[in-house]
């Protein structure tokens, strides 16, 4: 993948993360504000509500996208930091391989939890 594509991917995931994080923060932590706006949200952190949400397919897909965006954006950032160090400049290829491996591992773990919640 060329440097240009990596940069574009990081910017696109940043935009998606902004929207998703904003939604997540308001939904989970500022639901009173949503209630004021007329959107009924109650006890989102209660066990039965969490269980109910995890069975919702649309929300599960949204969380998979959220997870993918966070991993892609974060790991590209980490790569950019590492390749500017002397170690990163010497072993750039190994660093990228390790980060891709780490990303896939975390993604698989996250998707496993979301899929298990659907069942």
């Amino acid at each position, binding site marked *: 993948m*060329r*440097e*240009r594509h*990596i*940069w*574009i991917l990081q910017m696109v995931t940043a935009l998606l993360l902004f929207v998703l994080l904003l939604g997540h923060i308001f939904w989970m932590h500022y639901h009173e504000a949503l209630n004021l706006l007329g959107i009924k949200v109650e006890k989102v952190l209660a066990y039965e509500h969490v269980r109910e949400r995890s069975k919702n397919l649309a929300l599960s897909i949204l969380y998979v996208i959220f997870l993918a965006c966070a991993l892609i954006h974060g790991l590209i950032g980490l790569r*950019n930091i590492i390749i*500017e*160090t002397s170690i990163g*400049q010497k072993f750039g290829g190994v660093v990228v391989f390790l980060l891709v491996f780490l990303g896939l591992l975390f993604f698989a773990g996250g998707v496993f939890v979301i899929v298990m919640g659907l069942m």
Partner: protein
Amino acid sequence: MQKKVIFKIWRFKPPEKRQGYTKYEVPVVEGMTVLDGLLHIKENIDASLTIRYSCRMGVCGSCGMVINGKPDLACHLQISHIRSKVIEVRPLFNHPAVKDLICDFGPFFEKHRMVKPYLIRKDAGEQENPTLEYKQLPQEHLDYMQFSYCLKCGCCYAVCPTAATDELYLGPQAFSAAFRYLVDSRDEGWEERVLAVDTSHGIWRCHFAGSCAQVCPKGVDPGLASQLLKRLVIFGTGRGRAGAGIIEKPVPVPEKIEKIPKPPPATV
């Protein structure tokens, strides 16, 4: 009593590999620049001090150096504007030092050359042996005017955090030059120039720290040029653009012979 300042100058003599600061006391007069202070030291105190300068008026970009931690042109900065009794001067960061305050600009200019900082035309015949000028509207000139003020003083490159860690990184000056020619309506070298900046050591490594824009003595804002260059490369604006043609040949004005007075007859 005449006001005096202490010049703390970084000295470096290559074969000895000895380096460190030396202090000099310099009398200050109204309007005196840092370069004037350095020349005072060279002429009256220590002739071995090595500096590079030329125009003394902020046009040539030769006297770029780090003054009290910030790169600037020594001929541009007045001592009274520094507001400190100690003036610490050292060569530019990210440029290999040659001697005292002089740096090797070879690698810097090599990167500048890589972005082909000149008009590239398909009509090479017209470019090499021009018959007339290329057309350009004043609005089109404004697109790149700010970026054409660059002196190549290297101050932006000296503060770039990416240039500090990546020797092959092209740097803000080269991006600014690339952008300046890419948006020039007369240019047709989109592919060649984009190929030079769209690499693993190119434009995508810019973090937009913005220090380059902060230190530029001519207000070029290479940080802005780098961000605009990214947009230009992604959206391909200008790809395959036909450069402006040459201006139309002016219609010859018929001479009004009857109104032009005849020269007086020769006396010799």
